[in-house]
């Protein structure tokens, strides 16, 4: 048996191979979609705006993901959290998965893991416990999309409203969640105030775009509002928390 270090170069190499695979998949789909977009006559400038806007938007959530890697690394070392947070998972899944297995094994999650069998048990649970999304995607997506397209082709206007309604369902669920703690006192209102500031910043960006014709802002309105509201969450929490 090899001596075990959860930060070993072997584990980094293994995680690196899987992360590289995911990079290849992203590049493949990016290229195919780009070529198809050009075939459909979508202007190159619009595609570049999409790339820039998506890049700017991704920065803050991605930094939050690093925080998740740090949280898990105290227990599991870096390679496994790096891998898990770069693919399928998010902290809301990986942390309960690690905790659930650690409890089954009777080990604390506050200390670095040095038992290889415990480590592999956690790696297996993290991997197997959330495979359903990819499996369902691989097996059923074609069928699901076929049905959705039928709805869209049958009645184009309703097809649009149908898709918009699904978007709205998601946004509503998260907006509702923000209000969950307001009965717990003023502290429970903090997320609501942050949400309102984010919404106001978005409206201000809209005014800059539409009234003052500052067109570039259109592409960055969402990241600007998000980062602005995150920054304002600091004084709001200090004031009310």
């Amino acid at each position, binding site marked *: 048996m090899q001596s075990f270090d959860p930060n070993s170069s072997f584990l980094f190499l293994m995680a690196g191979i899987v992360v590289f695979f995911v990079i290849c998949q992203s590049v493949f789909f990016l290229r195919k979609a780009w070529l198809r977009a050009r075939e459909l006559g979508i202007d190159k400038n619009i595609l570049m705006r999409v790339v820039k806007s998506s890049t700017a938007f991704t920065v803050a959530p991605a930094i939050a993901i690093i925080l998740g890697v740090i949280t898990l690394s105290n227990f599991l070392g870096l390679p496994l959290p790096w891998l898990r947070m770069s693919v399928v998972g998010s902290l809301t899944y990986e942390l309960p998965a690690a905790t659930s297995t650690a409890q089954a094994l009777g080990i604390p999650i506050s200390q670095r893991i040095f038992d290889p069998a415990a480590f592999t048990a956690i790696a297996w649970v993290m*991997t197997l416990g959330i495979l359903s999304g990819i499996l369902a995607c691989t097996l059923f997506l074609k069928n699901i999309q076929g049905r959705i397209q039928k709805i869209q082709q049958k009645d184009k206007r309703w097809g649009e409203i149908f898709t918009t309604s699904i978007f709205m369902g998601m946004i509503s669920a998260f907006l*509702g969640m923000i209000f*969950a703690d307001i009965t717990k006192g003023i502290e429970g209102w903090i997320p609501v105030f942050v949400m309102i500031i984010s919404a106001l910043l978005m409206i201000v960006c809209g005014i800059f775009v539409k009234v003052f014709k500052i067109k570039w802002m259109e592409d960055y309105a969402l990241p600007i509002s998000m980062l602005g509201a995150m920054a304002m969450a600091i004084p709001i929490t200090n004031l009310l928390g």
Partner: protein
Amino acid sequence: MEREKYNEKVHLWGRIWCGCAIIMLLLFPTVSSIYYDAWPEGQAVLTGLLGVAPIFWTVGVIEVFTFAPMLGSGGSYLAFVTGNLTNLKVPCAINAMEVADTKAGSEESEVISTIAIAVSSLVTTLIIIMGIVLLSWLRPILESEILEPAFANILPALFGALAVLFISKNWKVAMAPLIFMLILFLSFPSLTEAVGVLVPVGALVAISASRILYLKGHV
């Protein structure tokens, strides 16, 4: 190329890539178990799985049905491998479709969504790699008490702006699911844990309400 032909190709590529991704994901635990000669106890894995799999297997399947119509085929095949759907990939795709001004469900929105998700995945992967390389320098900053409220409020900061983007254009469709979710979360605050399951519930409420509005000619 016709839309259907392109779609067929996307599904073929998607199935191959996702199939390989499943194998790649299983590679890490398999190879580390072999390399360290440390196969875990079956019971520990089963007990661990019992703590998460019933919820997350359900959520995973529901998410495919809910997000696939929004993300399109190419975007879905990629997003379900790269993860972080609700907090990153789906909002990113919505934002990109707004930037490109494409109609929901059109082929244009499908390719724009795929491009956005691919870019977002690449940027996320690179930022995480940079984060790991610079960890000793970044750690005190990211874990500082000053910044803690900013990261704790990332979802309200995201969905506030997203709400303006979407509700301003579709406020009639938005009303029913919004009111429903507000009442639900105010009545049962502990449901925040299950927000993933509530997304399709919100979608069903929105679809039902907008169908009525559509048939009456209000949307």
